[in-house]
């Protein structure tokens, strides 16, 4: 009995070893938890064209929360939910830590950007305050580099992924039948795990074309190879 307790005490320590890497490469202890690299890439940078997001350098707390939310169903996704449900708590913690330790997206700070009205950059940098939509960078940080554990980086993220998430937050309204077309039922939001419901109204009040263009804007902020000195200011 005492040995079991001792083992239990050791578990969290074991999880911080190479376990995160093992889960990424080979999957969890339950075979249903497939290796992460299958979709998120060997370098953790995702597969942009397929809409699989970059996980490398995301905050540990953010990744752990997303996996917990997949488990609980606050974030719905046919691929990720079964995987998250097959991971143990310790595995979730280990894989979140391992991804957070991979290099963060490196966006070089530049001069002030003056977005063109109506562009994706405009939504990202100016918002649409007439609809109470703050500029994305107000919370996700200048250049969308991410802030704290609650506001993930948007810069360099897959456009298809950003678009699908905004759509997941908004759901779709029902379309009534016409003479030629059948009625389409409303689709409820499949992602409901935003803290303080901050994203729901933003996603709902953006148009489809705005969603596409703002997603493309952040995806286009390519990664820089040059090191960035964090003591420099990032301008808005």
């Amino acid at each position, binding site marked *: 009995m005492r040995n079991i307790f001792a083992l239990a005490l050791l578990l969290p320590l074991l999880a911080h070893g190479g376990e995160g890497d093992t889960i990424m490469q080979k999957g969890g202890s339950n075979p249903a938890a497939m290796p992460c690299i299958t979709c998120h890439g060997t370098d953790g940078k995702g597969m942009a064209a397929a809409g699989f997001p970059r996980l490398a350098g995301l905050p540990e707390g953010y990744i752990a929360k997303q996996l917990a939310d997949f488990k609980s169903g606050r974030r719905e996704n046919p691929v990720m939910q079964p995987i998250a449900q097959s991971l143990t708590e310790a595995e979730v913690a280990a894989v979140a830590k391992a991804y957070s330790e991979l290099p963060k997206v490196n966006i070089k700070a530049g001069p002030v950007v003056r977005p063109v009205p109506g562009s994706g950059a405009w939504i990202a940098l*100016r918002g649409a305050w007439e609809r109470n939509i703050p500029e994305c960078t107000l919370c996700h940080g200048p250049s969308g580099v991410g802030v704290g554990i609650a506001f993930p980086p948007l810069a360099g993220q897959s456009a298809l992924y950003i678009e699908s998430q905004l759509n997941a937050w908004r759901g779709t309204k029902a379309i009534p039948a016409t003479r030629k077309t059948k009625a389409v039922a409303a689709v409820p939001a499949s992602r409901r795990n935003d803290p303080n419901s901050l994203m729901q109204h933003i996603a709902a009040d953006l148009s489809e074309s705005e969603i596409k263009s703002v997603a493309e804007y952040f995806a286009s902020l390519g990664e820089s190879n040059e090191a960035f000195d964090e003591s420099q200011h990032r301008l808005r």
Partner: protein
Amino acid sequence: MKTNAIQFLPLLLVLTVGSALAADSPSNPRLDDQTQLPKAPAQTFGRQYFQPPADADIPNNAFGDQVRRGQDLFMNTKALAPDYVGNEMNCVNCHIDQGRKANSAPLWAAYPMYPAYRKKNNKVNTFVERMQGCFQFSMNGKAPAADSEIMTAMTTYVYWLATGAPIGKALPGRGFDEPPPPKGGYDITRGKAVYDNQCAICHGDNGEGKKVGATSVFPALWGKDSYNWGAGMHRINTAAGFIQHNMPLGRGETLSDQQAWDVAAYVNSHERPQDPRLLNGSIDETRKRYHADDGINLYGVEVNGKKLGQGVQ
């Protein structure tokens, strides 16, 4: 004449109610000594606020260059004017949407109200002097000279924002449109609950704000990186107005009057940099002179056994 009076009766009623609320009478609990400007009228339901010109309308000439320079300073005050900003604040933190948003002290509504007498310094202030006050108090720094390049650029930007606004006329949306104080008063403990639930995610558990590298993203609400004890935002009534209309970001107008006052009181019941007008090193004297009649504030007031107004560095 009689018919006219009857015709205008609804209007008269509105005016009377409006001025009764605005009057600086001792019976008015919203009395605010720093608000020497006439109170902004309420917006008629369904009417649009004043619309400042669009960015695309900034001309491509020497004037336009100053507008853009002023806009950059407004958005990146700490980064571009570090000698004058003593904390981690930027103008845009309180004047949301580049100073365009109604009820977030929009600059298009402020500019046409100056020069104006201000009790705060007992003289007629130009708009530039008013902005210098922001640097001294809200930015806890020192004011750039009136004829400096920084002040010229910022004034040019604000003047441009006010293009087409009537001079000397209080526009709806000016200031923060403060909610009336709740009947039962405010409660700091209840305010903490609102803060922990809705504000801490961005502003931090200890009001410290959040930065990315050197750049402040979510401003500090108290402590050394925040506005000082002389800033208008240290008044609970003023902060309640800002919070109710603008917070959480994108979800303004969701807190009740009570919640807005409670959380404003919680935020403003913490230490922050000293009021630069500190008299003879005495909090009590400073309270008597500058804070006792300045809206609702906790400077020099004992909260949880500690007298506030010590200042932090």
